[in-house]
């Protein structure tokens, strides 16, 4: 038996696998048992109601996609009354992702959403579509820290800061949110991209730019998770391009304590279960007693010696 539990600050998850915000929904409960995953992460909530980006909202590539969804949201009251109840049937902790246009609004929203049934507040300081040209709080260490500090003041829930990858030095942002009191770091959101509909000489997305996610982004975000892991002491939740257990193992080995599975849920709706089972099987095969032993298990390259008969 492999002990699959992991601890993210003060909360314990039954296993290290959860969805990325905005990549699961109530629909998933029709496909699988939400008690099996480590946490339920809900789509980002904003203080105001929004319809989201003008369609078209997606461009597909061979190994990932560009989505410009924006954050369609019916506001915090609707979340508390209509969305949270869907997850009350499960023992799985709910991570509530929040975003707001000002530091103050972040604080008020987090306070409002610290209701029974919400175990963690994840601060989405990284959504690339809401701010002009993709600029976001998460692009600036000081602004990121201020958001985290304000949320910490307004809630007793653990606060995870979800970083944007669209930065020069993600380790510096990570250190800033750690100093501001973040309980964990989610690394990272989608990367800002764009596409052109060349036939019509126009942007392919209604919003012009969108978030690039999916397996092809894994090498980039994995590198960032590794950089963050070397820079901070708080737990890290990797998020970017995982499709299989093997991919999740990469994130755990560079120093993550848990992982968020995103885009691949859209293609293989039970991908999270495959990742959980695969990580457990890997531990068994390698003789590890607990999944948490994987965190940071990467070691420098050994001189490789092939075993061969003459």
């Amino acid at each position, binding site marked *: 038996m492999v002990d699959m539990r992991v601890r993210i600050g003060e909360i314990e998850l039954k296993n290290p696998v959860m969805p990325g915000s*905005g*990549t*699961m*929904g*109530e*629909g*998933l409960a*029709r*496909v*699988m*048992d939400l008690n099996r995953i480590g946490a339920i992460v809900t789509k980002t909530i904003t203080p105001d109601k929004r*319809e*989201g980006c003008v*369609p*078209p*909202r*997606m461009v*597909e*590539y*061979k*190994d*990932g*996609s560009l*989505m410009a*969804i924006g954050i*369609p949201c019916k506001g915090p009251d609707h979340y508390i009354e*209509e969305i949270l109840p869907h997850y009350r049937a499960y023992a799985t902790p709910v991570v509530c992702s929040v975003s707001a246009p000002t530091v103050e609004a972040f604080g008020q929203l987090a306070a409002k959403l610290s209701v029974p049934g919400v175990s963690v507040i994840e601060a989405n300081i990284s959504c690339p579509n809401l701010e002009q040209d993709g600029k976001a709080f998460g692009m600036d260490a000081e602004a990121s820290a201020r958001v985290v500090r304000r949320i910490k003041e307004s809630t007793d829930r653990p606060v995870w800061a979800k970083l944007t990858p669209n930065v020069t030095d993600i380790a510096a942002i990570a250190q800033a949110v750690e100093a501001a009191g973040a309980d964990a770091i989610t690394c990272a959101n989608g990367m800002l991209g764009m596409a052109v509909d060349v036939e019509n000489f126009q942007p392919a997305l209604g919003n012009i730019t969108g978030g690039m996610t*999916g397996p092809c982004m894994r090498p980039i975000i994995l590198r960032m998770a590794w950089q963050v892991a070397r820079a901070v002491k708080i737990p890290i939740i990797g998020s970017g391009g995982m499709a299989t257990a093997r991919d999740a193992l990469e994130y755990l080995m560079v120093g993550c304590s848990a992982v968020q599975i995103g*885009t691949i*849920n*859209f*293609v*293989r*709706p*039970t991908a999270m279960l495959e990742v959980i089972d695969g990580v457990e099987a890997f531990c068994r095969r390698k003789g590890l007693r607990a999944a948490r032993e994987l965190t940071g298990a990467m070691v420098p390259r050994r001189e490789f010696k092939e075993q061969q008969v003459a």
Partner: protein
Amino acid sequence: MGSGAHVNDSPFPVAETLCPVVANDWVNDSYKHLILDAAHGAIHAEPGQFFHLLCPSIGENVPFYRRPMSIYRIDRAQGRLEFLYKIVGRGTTTLAALAPGEKLNIFGPLGRRFDFETRCRHIVQVARGVGLATLAPVAEAAGQLGIRTTAILSARSPKHLMSIEYLRSTGAGVISVTDSEGTSGVEAVEDIVRGLIEKEGGDFLLTCGSNRLLQLLQRLGREYGIAGEVALEQHMGCGIGMCFACVREFRAPGGGITYRRVCWEGPVFDIQEAVSW
């Protein structure tokens, strides 16, 4: 957040199923008819719902997401699901390469079904192109309930007309109109629909696949005060309401415009709420 996805006894009404291909034959030069063996699941589908198909990767055609396809026919007796699809791009190209015996990963059933059973006595459906695949199963289901169906099929030319026999076998009346014969203009179709409403008791309008036909039926529906539904398409990510990629504009109940997810609130919508495109 209504969902019409059929709920059965199993704890998980929506599932991935690996279905052996029974047949995958050409219907004309751009459409194929796919028959899957779904005896062990996925058969609890209803007209208007769709499946999300994991089209294989072959060569340069590497479709990342699944592809939505309406159920063309549900053959519960034989445990078969049928699809009628047009080859247009990467995914449908690799779908077309499937040979009998190979397996296809399908996810579903998904989306909201047509809701006509208790609402009408004579369905008038007008379909063009792929729309036909979506509307066809309504005729069969209606027939079993003793509801009359008249299907107006619109196509480029007579050889592009499909499923006339299948529709007739369900008891539906079939009227075909084509561009090449000059019978498919909006005015001509309007005359036919008015006739069906005024003289044949047509009391429910269904359409799929053409913007102009949608606009026509919206106008006639308002004029005669009869209800109807439209099945819409949009590019999809997840197919199950999670990604919000598949939204289209709708008239909000309180006025103004709102976005709704074709995969979750649809693909079947009230005909008057749909915003033509």
